[in-house]
């Protein structure tokens, strides 16, 4: 893609965001939308500033981020472990891979009431729920990565006398790494969304709880402040991740 | 019997064709073809032989009406080319253009539909063309179920089934291994002797050019010009024994001598550009 067309598409994307903000500004100042559904930008801005000034904001962010980190860690460790065990033989892959894949197609949110039953409404139920959801992309991608490594590489490594561990470290893992990395990324964003979802559904603390609470108390400005905050975080994370992936791709 | 065909009418006439492309990255243009003129007589088999990136395929696409020339004109049977003329010209491309989502039969059907052939003829023409290349058994297979060689064989049959006077072939055997390529070349020579079609054939392969052509147009590196025309003068159908003759070897060496410097120059052009030339071919 040439520089000129990148410039054009970037301009259109920036224009899109500008238009969205313009429409928001327009419909709220003319009063064509009730402030209950969409409060004015200024109200959201001052609600956000008030929010940040209270300790409540940072404690909610801390709870949510800690929950996400714990859930993701569990998902990654379990996912890679299960994938490693399953890929020990082609037969096991044939037995388990389709089961894992089709389970992932069921809305696992159905299990959420169970986690509430087991762990209560504290952060633990959210960790369990998000880790369950986040486990699948890691396991599926790692299985795909490890079982599709070129047979010639493995044969070449063995012909040179590599041990099982050597083979894993120098051939299997590096060859599968790009696919595993995709799994880690997808898993992170799913864990992220699942924690927020769990907090929204049933929780005592965290960002999701605060959004639900603001809606319940009919305080749309505060709700939007949270929503915009989460969207900004997501967009930033996406840019960071794709910049990282683009740099890796250059090797 | 030796028929140079000099007295036959001209089927395709290219006059002063120049083609420029907008260059990628930097400003300016790349001249792909520089003032090309050539005539192809009816029933003649002509090869365009040259280094990669010299514009042979571009010329083929211009003759077929798929690209517009920047300058110059092409006439087919006396009429100027202003777009695809499916009734008169068919294409056979480097890789099979059989659609993977249709069976062989459906591929033939959809081609006939595109071309506007009456439905009553579809079945018979498909069967005849497949029989001619020995692929009748595979009429209800999907392209992905066939090997690359079989697929290109069917692709060839499809080109013939369209029953145009002129067939343009853009390195149709390039993706095949040497042995399959030779067998298909023999088949082609045999089929053509029967049908008397006019063929313009783009290739990289010296042996293929000498084995198939009545005349070989040897090209320079980019910007492409015609460097020499070599008459082969051997009647079709040609048997593989032709390749063992001294004359075959001499013609092949003559082509190679003409090409060697051009290929080196094409390679240095690629090096200077920093990447292999991908456009045009």
């Amino acid at each position, binding site marked *: 893609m040439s520089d000129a067309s990148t410039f054009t598409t970037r301009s259109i994307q920036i224009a899109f965001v500008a238009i969205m903000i313009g429409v928001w500004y327009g419909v709220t100042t003319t009063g064509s939308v009730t402030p209950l559904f969409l409060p004015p930008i200024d109200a959201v801005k001052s609600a956000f500033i008030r929010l940040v000034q209270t300790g409540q904001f940072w404690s909610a962010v801390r709870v949510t981020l800690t929950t996400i980190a714990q859930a993701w860690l569990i998902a990654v460790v379990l996912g890679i472990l299960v994938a490693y065990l399953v890929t020990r033989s082609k037969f096991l892959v044939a*037995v388990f891979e389709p089961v894992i894949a089709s389970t992932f197609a069921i809305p696992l949110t159905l299990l959420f*009431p169970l986690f509430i039953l087991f762990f209560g409404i504290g952060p633990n139920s959210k960790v369990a729920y998000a880790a369950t959801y986040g486990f699948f992309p890691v396991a599926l991608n790692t299985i795909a990565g490890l079982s599709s490594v070129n047979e010639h590489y493995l044969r070449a490594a063995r012909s040179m006398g590599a041990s099982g561990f050597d083979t894993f470290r120098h051939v299997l893992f590096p060859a599968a790494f790009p696919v595993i990395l995709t799994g880690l990324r997808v898993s992170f964003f799913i864990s992220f969304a699942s924690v927020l*979802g769990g907090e929204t559904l049933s929780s005592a603390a965290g960002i999701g709880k605060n959004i639900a609470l603001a809606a319940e108390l009919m305080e749309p400005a505060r709700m939007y402040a949270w929503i915009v905050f989460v969207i900004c975080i997501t967009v930033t994370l996406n840019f960071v991740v794709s910049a990282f992936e683009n740099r890796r791709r250059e090797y | 019997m030796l028929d140079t065909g000099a007295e036959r009418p001209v089927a395709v006439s290219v006059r002063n064709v120049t083609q420029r492309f907008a260059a990628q990255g930097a400003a300016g243009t790349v001249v792909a073809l520089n003032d090309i003129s050539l005539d192809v007589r009816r029933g003649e088999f002509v090869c365009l032989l040259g280094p990669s990136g010299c514009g042979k395929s571009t010329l083929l696409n211009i003759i077929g*009406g798929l690209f517009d020339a920047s300058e110059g004109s092409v006439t087919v049977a006396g009429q100027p080319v202003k777009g695809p003329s*499916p009734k008169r010209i068919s294409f056979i491309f480097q890789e099979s253009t059989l659609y*993977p*989502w*249709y069976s062989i039969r459906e591929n033939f059907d*959809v081609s006939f539909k595109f071309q506007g052939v009456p439905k009553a003829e579809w079945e018979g023409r498909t069967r005849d063309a497949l029989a001619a290349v020995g692929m009748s058994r595979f009429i209800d297979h999907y392209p992905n179920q066939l090997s690359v060689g079989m697929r290109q064989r069917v692709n060839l049959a499809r080109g013939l089934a369209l029953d145009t006077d002129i067939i343009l072939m853009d390195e149709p055997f390039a993706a095949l291994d040497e042995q399959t390529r030779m067998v298909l070349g023999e088949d082609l020579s045999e089929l053509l002797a029967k049908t008397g079609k006019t063929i313009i054939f783009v290739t990289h392969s010296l042996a293929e050019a000498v084995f198939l052509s009545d005349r070989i147009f040897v090209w320079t590196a980019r910007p492409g010009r015609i460097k020499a025309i070599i008459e082969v003068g051997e009647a079709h159908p040609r048997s593989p024994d032709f390749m063992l003759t001294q004359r075959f070897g001499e013609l092949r060496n003559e082509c190679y001598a003409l090409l060697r410097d051009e290929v080196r120059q094409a390679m240095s052009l690629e090096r200077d550009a920093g990447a292999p030339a991908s456009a045009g071919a």
Partner: protein
Amino acid sequence: MTAAQAELPAHRAPAARHGFSYATRVRLTRWIIFAGLLLAWEVYGQTLANPRLISPPSGVLYALFSEILADGRIVTAIFESFREVIVAYVASILLGLAIGLGVGWSSFGRRSFFPIVLLLYAIPQVILLPLFVLIFGIGPACKIAFGISHGVFPIIVNVIAGMRNVNPLYLRSAASMGGSAVDVARHVYFPHMVPSLFTGLRLGMTMTLLGVILAELYVSTQGIGYWTKVYAENFDPAPLLALIAVLALMAIILNSLVRVGERRFTRWRN
């Protein structure tokens, strides 16, 4: 890795020793493991487990017939969410096709708007759930709308992705044979898009189900959300598991229906 190597010959010579084909052995192993887990769960549920948290499968089965299917209100709630999923899914398909075709038609549209669509897709939409309830109320409208907002994105994304990378030779070949624009759309672009479209339809179904279930669970004053809340608060695992099982079964059936369609229309890919 040595285990994988050792398995190779067995894979190539499909288990003549056992008298079963490879595929049958795979399926058999799967069922044996499944039955084993069920049995272990039953034994654990009958003996050591806290009955306030875990019920054995037999208890779940009993609760399915004595509580879930016997209660007209719950059956109505299940049918209601089934209806919501179907309505939301159909709307997602129509909307997804319209937007996807609109954006994907030109390479300009793809380059400009595809990144925006992808970015919107990446936002965890669940944070908008309270807003949806605020706007649409707690009835079916909210659940359908939330289902659409989840289901529509994978369809848009895959329709757009499916319109990319059409082999230019196929287009040139069609032009040389005299194919019209309509011919090319019907015989080249559309079939090329089909596999990707079905990927979108499959993911769209999964996401629509997710959206509807999320909204159902969020609204805890009626429908399925109410019942799951009641069972969880009363530490009554048997009917809770039975209700979850019924909904999971619904999801499995809907997913398989889409998969059957997918296989039917993409046979040429082997």
